[in-house]
């Protein structure tokens, strides 16, 4: 499918046609992006979702080069990566909250706990509510799964729709993310003996695994410097 450029000898596309084509390709790309993110959000099917997602990015880039007005790549990237970040965290922690006695949860979590972060191994499933028993851990799990991540996902979706409130609330929820990161790490450090004793890869394992979740830290500078006019009410 080729996209006519506005500099074509035959004259530019009419406003209506331009908008129509832009919207069509945007929707087409979004289908790939959403499907890709959905697959990546399951954790285990991630490697299948990545090429699907990249196809969506490719369609958007091609449309941009063809002169169509589609969502800027950075907005797409931030929006979907933030959703992915929140979804991956949520899938894990939702299992810990609501499915902590499923075989897969018990096995995978205690294995992860034994290898990387014993907060998910030490006295696992002994609390009345089940799941991780490390001091303070459950509180962070609950505030994230029930409050922080749903808010962030909602804001990111509105941000992807180029809504002004999406942009504003993504700023707010990413700043929440700073609090979550810091509070969570402070708590871990306070009870570091519980979290790291007899673990497969103490300290290094946790940081190497979790460093890729710093997406809110990367989004904040962009959100504060992007031209707000591109987001409409």
């Amino acid at each position, binding site marked *: 499918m080729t996209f006519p450029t506005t500099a074509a000898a035959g004259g530019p596309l009419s406003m209506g046609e331009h908008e129509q084509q832009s919207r069509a390709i945007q929707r087409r790309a979004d289908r790939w992006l959403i499907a890709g993110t959905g697959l990546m959000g399951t954790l285990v099917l991630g490697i299948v979702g990545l090429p699907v997602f990249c196809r969506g990015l490719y369609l958007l880039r091609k449309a941009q080069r063809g002169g169509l007005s589609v969502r800027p790549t950075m907005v797409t990237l931030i929006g979907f990566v933030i959703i992915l970040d929140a979804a991956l965290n949520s899938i894990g922690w939702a299992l810990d909250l609501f499915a902590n006695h499923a075989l897969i949860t018990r096995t995978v979590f205690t294995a992860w706990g034994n290898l990387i972060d014993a907060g998910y191994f030490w006295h696992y499933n002994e609390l009345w509510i089940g799941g991780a028993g490390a001091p303070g851990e459950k509180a962070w799990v609950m505030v994230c799964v029930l409050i922080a991540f749903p808010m962030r996902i909602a804001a990111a979706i509105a941000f992807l729709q180029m809504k002004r409130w999406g942009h504003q609330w993504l700023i707010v929820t990413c700043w929440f993310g700073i609090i979550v*990161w*810091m509070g969570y*790490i402070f708590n871990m450090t306070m009870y*570091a003996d519980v979290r790291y*004793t007899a673990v497969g890869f103490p*300290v290094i394992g946790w*940081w190497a695994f979790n460093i890729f979740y710093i997406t809110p830290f990367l989004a904040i500078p962009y959100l*504060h*410097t992007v031209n707000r006019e591109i987001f409409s009410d």
Partner: protein
Amino acid sequence: MHDQDRRRKRGLIAFQVFVYGMLIAMFAIQLQMYLTRHW
């Protein structure tokens, strides 16, 4: 316009120094604990 941008740039640099500084500090603290305790 330029003044606001300059202030914003300084603010963002401060933010990034602070936030990544905190992360590095916490990592260093945990590493130091790893080296001194018998994990």
